[in-house]
């Protein structure tokens, strides 16, 4: 399909969807290769605008790291608690005969205070605040932003980072005197983190609207559960669950990590296979400096939890 036709078809479809209304439907974020490669969505039941391959975490394990400084408004401990609760909400989804096969665990705190996906160095899925300046020009209205990096051909998610705009907003973590409820916002964001797009069901956590001063998005609906169960259907626990990020785990930003060794100490199959990101190391095979030490601590925790 020619690109211009693609644009017309997409917007025409979107417009008819908007005007005609639609039954509730969960949607998965997807990699669409029609025209120029772009991010799209695939829904159930299908929508006119569906396109591409849904995104997913191939290992069914995610480790995330809270940035060590957290925020002057929300402490590190509070952030840990909120993140844990948000991911636990998704993990407890009722898939009729089990829970989603996805182990999400907290890894060592990140010192890196930026969104990054490193193609030749270690990575971490970072949860970070911007207390001083929200770095996205023209968008101080943004509360939270998640960046998902993925393989265009397979839809495999490589990395996800969540940035919270504490420079322009006051998040609250209590059940009373709620302003912008961090747990509600983060529960929605962690749905994206795991591969969900917005739902067409107005009651769903993944519906693209949050009403200020409420905590309703802390609780999943059947539509949200159907979505997460479709991505990660229940199956027996995977004892080999490995949450190591692509190219290894590091709490450091790329600039602080030592240059990657060119010696032959790498193990596993080389990167650069069709559909890979062209990195020089194997997935999970390159550990960087201090990050390697932290990983040793982090992975033992992850494995214990994943098999629990």
């Amino acid at each position, binding site marked *: 399909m020619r690109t211009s036709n693609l644009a017309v078809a997409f917007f025409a479809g979107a*417009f008819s969807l908007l005007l005609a209304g639609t039954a509730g439907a969960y949607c998965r974020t997807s990699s669409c290769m029609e025209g120029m490669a772009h991010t799209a969505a695939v829904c159930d039941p299908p929508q006119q605008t569906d396109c591409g391959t849904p995104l997913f975490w191939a290992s069914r394990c995610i480790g995330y790291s809270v940035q060590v400084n957290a925020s002057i408004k929300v402490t590190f401990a509070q952030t840990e608690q909120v993140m844990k609760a948000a991911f636990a909400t998704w993990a407890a989804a009722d898939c009729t005969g089990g829970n989603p096969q996805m182990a999400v665990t907290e890894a060592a705190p990140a010192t890196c205070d930026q969104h990054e996906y490193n193609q030749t160095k270690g990575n971490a899925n970072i949860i970070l605040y911007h207390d001083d300046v929200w770095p996205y020009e023209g968008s101080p209205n943004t509360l939270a932003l998640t960046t998902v990096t*993925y393989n265009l051909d397979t839809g495999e998610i490589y990395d996800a980072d969540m940035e919270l705009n504490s420079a322009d907003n006051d998040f609250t973590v209590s059940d009373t005197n709620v302003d912008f409820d961090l747990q509600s916002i983060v529960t929605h964001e962690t749905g994206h983190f795991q591969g969900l797009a917005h739902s067409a069901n107005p009651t769903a956590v993944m519906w693209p609207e949050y009403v200020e001063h409420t905590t309703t998005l802390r609780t999943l609906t059947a539509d949200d559960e159907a979505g997460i169960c479709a991505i990660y259907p229940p199956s027996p626990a995977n004892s080999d669950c490995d949450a190591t990020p692509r190219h290894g785990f590091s709490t450091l930003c790329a600039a602080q990590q030592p240059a990657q060794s060119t010696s032959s100490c790498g193990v596993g199959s080389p990167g650069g296979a069709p559909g890979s990101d062209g990195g020089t190391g194997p997935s999970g095979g390159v550990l960087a400096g201090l990050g390697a030490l932290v990983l040793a601590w982090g992975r033992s925790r992850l494995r214990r939890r994943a098999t629990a």
Partner: protein
Amino acid sequence: MLALPPLLAFSPRAEALTARLITLDQLLERSTYVVLGTAGERRCVWEDLPSGRRIVTYTRVAVERAVAGAPGAEVLVRTLGGAVDHIGQAVSGEAQIFPGSRALLFLVQINGAVVVTGMAQGHYPVVVDAKGTPRLVASPDVDMLVSRPGPTVSAHERLVGTPVEDAISLVKQLQKARDENK
């Protein structure tokens, strides 16, 4: 005043932005240009930004009408996310401007780059309805929006579903009022 039901704000494309709704006046205040234009070629590159190294997309937009500001005949718009080689990056509620698409765009020039004001909240694609009227729709990446308490109406509510000519008139009226109050 157009107040649309929540369904009209929905597009099943978005990833992961949570944002407060902004008013049309705020959108205009933050924008250097407002243009009706058609997207042309685009290219994606890895770029170092204050937020870190990420994929960005540069889209060439041919300006059909300059509604506010003086952008010239063409403007190069930078948006977050895109695809380079075999890697895709989905960035949360950012405007996705497809080549060949026509849109009303609120743009801000900062540090040499032109970006969409308020990300997807500053991008309103034009679609011709069944009666042949060109109307604005929500950006495909408009993301999780926080309902605005009180009587204020968001730009999103005012513009989505509005005929293009009416929307342009509205923006020009607001711009004129802003200029007169300076």
